[in-house]
């Protein structure tokens, strides 16, 4: 751990510190400071911030595959949503007999569909540990199966992006069906409590936020550990010149597969944290548009930086919250413009911009000490 921390640059340390401070400060301000005080954080803001944290984790996962391995996945929303469904199923079963139909075993929608017994896929979800495991296992297995096929047959670049998009689209269609067994188009909602605590209460919200922030910090450390290792160096090499790496004797598909699975698991965790905080999960989470939106968070923050991806998710979503409230008409213009402008003018994202500024100042003062690192070429 200390070895890892010592490897972090100043920015990484600052990010880690900021996340941890948030994890402590936000619950404090939300719970301990009396309402009406200028520093008090209203409960809905806590839930909102918690949501941003989950998005930041998702962006981190995406940056790991796109920024460091050149795999532009347009289906990461699917892993996120699968993790969310796993958690949603746990929360559904916690409702127990408090549902509208007061069935102790079956969730309301199953009673409504006139089902007599719990489907196999729902077994075990009364246990939090099992649900948590599934939230990681299911996205991981899907990513493994998908990546196994895709990477071995060298489906790359745009083709891979389109196929990942088709994957999430297919899942969306499947989850929309009532007989698929996961609540159809209404999804899962009306949750009551998690581990015995009321999901709606302020204290639970604050705790969930803290857990999300801590998870973000942990995932960040994990991602840093991966990209800093020898394995990570090979990943970057795959991104920049896949064929050359293959000719050097590396099994490129295995490198890609591992990072893809890890990324999917992280996305699943993000989804699992997301659902109790927003209180609903439905098939629209599988919408391809969501996955593409997640990609733009990474692009705005700066791909291949990890910190940038997380910040990008928070900045873009903050802007979304503001715009959809203040000028609902113009949010799509803003988002669309963001896509175009960032790809055209900010290929390295906001973080790249900041770094370029920082690099210019010392360069102006003294002669350039080292040649700037060559920009990674897109391999696709």
């Amino acid at each position, binding site marked *: 751990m200390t070895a890892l921390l010592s490897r972090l640059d100043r920015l990484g340390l600052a990010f880690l510190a900021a996340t941890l401070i948030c994890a402590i400060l936000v619950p404090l301000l939300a719970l301990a400071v009396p309402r009406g005080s200028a520093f008090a954080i209203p409960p809905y803001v806590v839930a909102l911030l918690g949501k941003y944290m989950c998005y930041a984790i998702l962006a981190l996962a995406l940056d790991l595959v796109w920024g460091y391995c050149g795999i*532009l996945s347009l289906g990461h929303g699917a892993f996120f949503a699968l993790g969310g469904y796993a958690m949603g199923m746990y929360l559904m079963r916690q409702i127990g007999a408090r549902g509208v139909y007061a069935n102790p075993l079956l969730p309301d929608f199953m009673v409504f569909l006139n089902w007599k017994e719990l489907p196999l896929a729902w077994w075990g979800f009364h246990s939090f540990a099992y649900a948590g495991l599934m939230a990681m296992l299911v996205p991981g297995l899907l990513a493994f199966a*998908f990546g196994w*096929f*895709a990477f*071995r*047959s*060298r*489906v*790359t*670049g*745009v*083709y891979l*992006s*389109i*196929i990942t*998009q*088709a*994957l999430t*689209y*297919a899942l969306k*269609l*499947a989850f*929309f*069906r009532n007989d698929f067994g996961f609540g159809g188009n209404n999804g899962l909602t009306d949750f009551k409590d998690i581990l015995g605590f009321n999901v709606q209460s302020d204290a639970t919200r604050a705790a969930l936020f803290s857990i999300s922030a801590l998870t973000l910090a942990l995932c960040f450390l994990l991602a840093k550990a991966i990209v800093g290792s020898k394995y990570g160096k090979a990943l970057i090499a795959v991104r920049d010149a*896949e*064929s050359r790496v293959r000719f050097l004797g590396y099994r490129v598909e295995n490198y890609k597969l591992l990072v893809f699975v890890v990324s999917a698991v992280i996305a699943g965790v993000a989804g699992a944290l997301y659902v109790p905080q927003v209180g609903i999960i439905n098939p629209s989470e599988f919408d*391809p548009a969501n996955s*593409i939106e997640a*990609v*733009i968070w990474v*692009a705005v923050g700066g791909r291949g930086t990890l910190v940038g991806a997380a910040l990008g998710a928070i900045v873009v979503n903050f802007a979304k919250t503001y715009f959809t409230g203040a000028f609902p*008409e*113009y949010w*799509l*213009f803003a*988002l*669309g*413009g*963001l*896509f*175009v402008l*960032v*790809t*055209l003018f900010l*290929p390295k994202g906001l973080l790249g911009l900041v770094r370029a500024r920082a690099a210019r100042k010392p360069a102006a003062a003294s002669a350039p000490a080292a040649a700037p690192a060559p920009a990674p070429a*897109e*391999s*696709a």
Partner: protein
Amino acid sequence: MRAAYREKPHVMNIARLFAALVFLCCASLARADALDDTLAKFLDNKFARTEQAVGELAASGAANAPAILDALGDNRLLIDPVGRVLVYQTAAGDVLNAKTGEKLAGVDVDSFKKVRVNNALRNAIQAALGALTLANPDPAKRIEAAEAVFKSRDVKALPALEAQLAKESDSRAAAALRQARAAILALDAKAPKSDRLAALAALRERGDQDAQSLIDEVAAKTDDPALKNAAQAALAAIKTRLAMWDAAQNVWYGLSAASVLLLAAIGLAITFGVMGVINMAHGEMVMLGAYATFVVQSALPPSLSEWSLAIALPIAFLVSGCVGVVLERCVIQFLYGRPLETLLATWGVSLILQQAVRTIFGANNRQVYAPKFMSGGVEVGGLSITTGRLWIIALAILVFVALQLALRVTPFGLRMRAVTQNRRMAAAMGVSTGRIDMFAFGLGSGIAGVTGVALSQIDNVSPNLGQGYIIDSFMVVVLGGVGNLWGTALGALTLGLANKLLEPVIGAVLGKILLLVLIILFIQKRPRGLFALKGRALEA
């Protein structure tokens, strides 16, 4: 076309004889004195006699028979007790002599007695009126009436049916009449067995769902083994036939879906082939084409409304094509060599276009009407074919052929193919790749606009129109590869047919999921699609 009706010779002779007898009988009834007799039966005002009179009146085919029957059913047929004259009151209140149709002035309607009717009589009147329309001078009306008889299977309509059949000149009306007669005879336990067998054969020829349920009834009711066997054989034959038509119908749906897919995907395939760029805003180009149609229809005077789509086609092509060229010049050319970034940028453009259209035209669906020549449909045997879909298939073929020609024959097409195959080599040979990119993108987007005109006819014209097609068109391109347009056509055909043939078996959604999974598996085998360009490049 339905096969002509055929009978075994001896049955034919009997039928002819029977028809001739009935014809003679009717002819004699049609004489004036016979009509007098018939009308006199009404005067008795007894249910049994009235029913007889209704039947005779219907068979007589007298000109004023429908009016009299109508009046009877509405309690407007009256008896003048003084002169024992049958009169009827029209709906407007005029009193007319039933036989001559003369208008009677200054009569006291209240003193007249109504000819009584009961429910049984009302049914008889309905049947009689149906029989009378069988004799309508308009063949279409006759067919309609025959179909009504076919459905009601009223034995009372038989004489009228036979009478009309004997003098029927229109072949389609005759077929409909024969089928109606067969429907009655097949179920009539009192009819001679040979007639019933002939009727079953006729129903078997008809071979649709109505005939099926009818024969089902015959098979259930009859005890005669010969009849039962014939009925069962006919049922089996009809079932196979219906299943075949069903399959044909699904193939038709598949072709129709394939044509839409081809139209939506072919522009995408061009831009992807030439530039290696996936245009995520392609669906929005389609949407712009649909809105262009709406604008054209709103702006055109009503006298030109038949031509609105023909006028909209070039305009939609230009609108979408120009937007495509602007997009290429302002965004995509700067992202050359970064296909993934291009994908994101065009996605952003698609969001902007959607919201722009939503701001200008509103979020609601816009109404685009179909010109007369495109509405309606035709029945070919058991197939129902909508004209609109037929035109869309024609348009898809037209666009495909035109594009093939443009690529094969014109210098522009030659350069475009050169850039598709090897961009750097083409540039070295003096092809201005930048200009080719621009025109190729314009062309692809323009075709999307044309597609929008077609889709405005079968889908809701809303800002989200393009979204529904984009993933499917990607799948077509992925399946077909970018080597040549035949791949796109084959991909569209495969997907369209597979989709529609799977639909009745496992449902629409499951079918779609299965197809997506199959494509994901297919791409393992052929990562560059069916028609991949052959070359020695390491990374295509």
